[in-house]
């Protein structure tokens, strides 16, 4: 039984059908990277999985329980599915420490002191213990994103969904965020929408190429980079390689 299973997910906004029957599974500790052009439904898929935008059709199963059912406790489910946003979405009025501890305290019901201890430990993991008392406006983009990751991690999720976590960052700040994400590989399952091909190649267990609301092709990084079967996958990866430069194997 997979840890996470999406079956035939459909999602429309008005007349526009964004997801046209997506199915995927994830195991514990697995990392999957979703790639594809803009507007192809990658972010929508992530938002469907943690029910921020519930799917119109299809089912999602987490640890064998259907979370798209009417009786599912949506707030309980979201604690198990972390989300890291492209534009960070840190709580502006709270320090880095409180950004991480507030979920533990107000959602998980931990004592304030315990929540703060745990939050500090999570901030240490992402290299931001010293910035614990700083507010989001006092942090750089990369630091904000790492707080965002710590906030998601603190809730002990089964899977963390990353929605283009580095695309709002200056190139110099991307490395720190990717390093943190790499350090999480195989400890927690990650489903990552990104254009960072180096990360996809080196960290992902599977790469999924999406286009037009469908999964066109998926496979291991070596298969996808060396021998993509679908013409569109080849074209897309070719364009990415031209744009960002060819990634060295293992680099």
């Amino acid at each position: 039984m997979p840890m996470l299973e999406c079956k035939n997910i459909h999602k429309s906004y008005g007349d526009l059908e964004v997801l046209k029957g997506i199915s995927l599974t994830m195991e514990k500790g697995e990392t999957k990277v979703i790639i594809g052009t803009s507007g192809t439904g990658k972010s929508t898929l992530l938002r469907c999985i943690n029910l921020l935008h519930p799917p119109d059709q299809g089912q999602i199963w987490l640890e064998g329980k259907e979370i798209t059912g009417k009786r599912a406790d949506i707030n309980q489910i979201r604690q198990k599915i972390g989300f890291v946003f492209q534009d960070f979405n840190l709580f502006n009025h709270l320090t880095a420490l409180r950004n991480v501890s507030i979920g533990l305290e107000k959602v998980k019901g931990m004592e304030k002191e315990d929540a703060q201890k745990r939050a500090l430990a999570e901030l240490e993991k992402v290299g931001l213990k010293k910035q614990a008392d700083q507010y989001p406006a006092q942090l750089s983009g990369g630091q904000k994103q790492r707080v965002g990751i710590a906030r998601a991690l603190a809730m002990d999720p089964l899977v963390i969904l990353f929605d283009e976590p580095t695309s709002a960052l200056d190139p110099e700040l991307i490395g720190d965020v990717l390093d943190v994400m790499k350090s999480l590989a195989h400890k927690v399952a990650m489903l990552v929408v990104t254009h960072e091909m180096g990360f996809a190649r080196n960290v992902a267990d599977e790469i999924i190429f999406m286009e037009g609301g469908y999964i066109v092709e998926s496979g291991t990084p070596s298969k996808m980079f060396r021998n993509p079967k679908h013409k569109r996958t080849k074209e897309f990866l070719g364009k990415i390689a031209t744009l960002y430069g060819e990634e060295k194997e293992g680099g």
Partner: protein
Amino acid sequence: MAIGRSYGRPPLSTLIYIYEKVLRGIPLLVIFFLIFFGFPQFGITLGAFTAAILGLGLRSTAYQAQIFRSAINSIPSGQMTAARAIGMSRLKAIRYIILPQVLRLSIPGWSNEFTIVLKDTSIAFSIGVIELMRRGRHIYAREPDLVLWVLFLIAAIYFIMVFATNKSLGYLEKKYKMSGFEVSIDE
């Protein structure tokens, strides 16, 4: 009311919208007269003081709802999304994430509204409430030569009350301004 208007569904949000529009569209003097002279026709008779408090309260509620609603609207939608994403219910997200930011953002507008309400208490004079203006009138009716000095004194009392209140609210605004909206890494 601001929360009901921003996050509530019809008919609640519609009713609040109508309330705001109507109360903001009627002069305070008319509201006082409606409550004090009009309500008795429906069998509701209120003392002048109660009618004045009610009138001021009802009108200010409409304005304050606007102040808080504009603050709510200025909070990026991602704040609510992020709160929901960590498992907060809508109510908890409003309480712990949205409201603390809204209150900070609302202090300048709210202090302005407070000043207006304080000064508008003088209009309660029109329905016979013995407030500062009426007290003053009692004095200068007996001592007409003092009229200018009495009015100066009334003005000074209002000024001191407004000044002291604004100073206190200004202090609050400064104290809580580390909300992330004003603090910049370049500062």
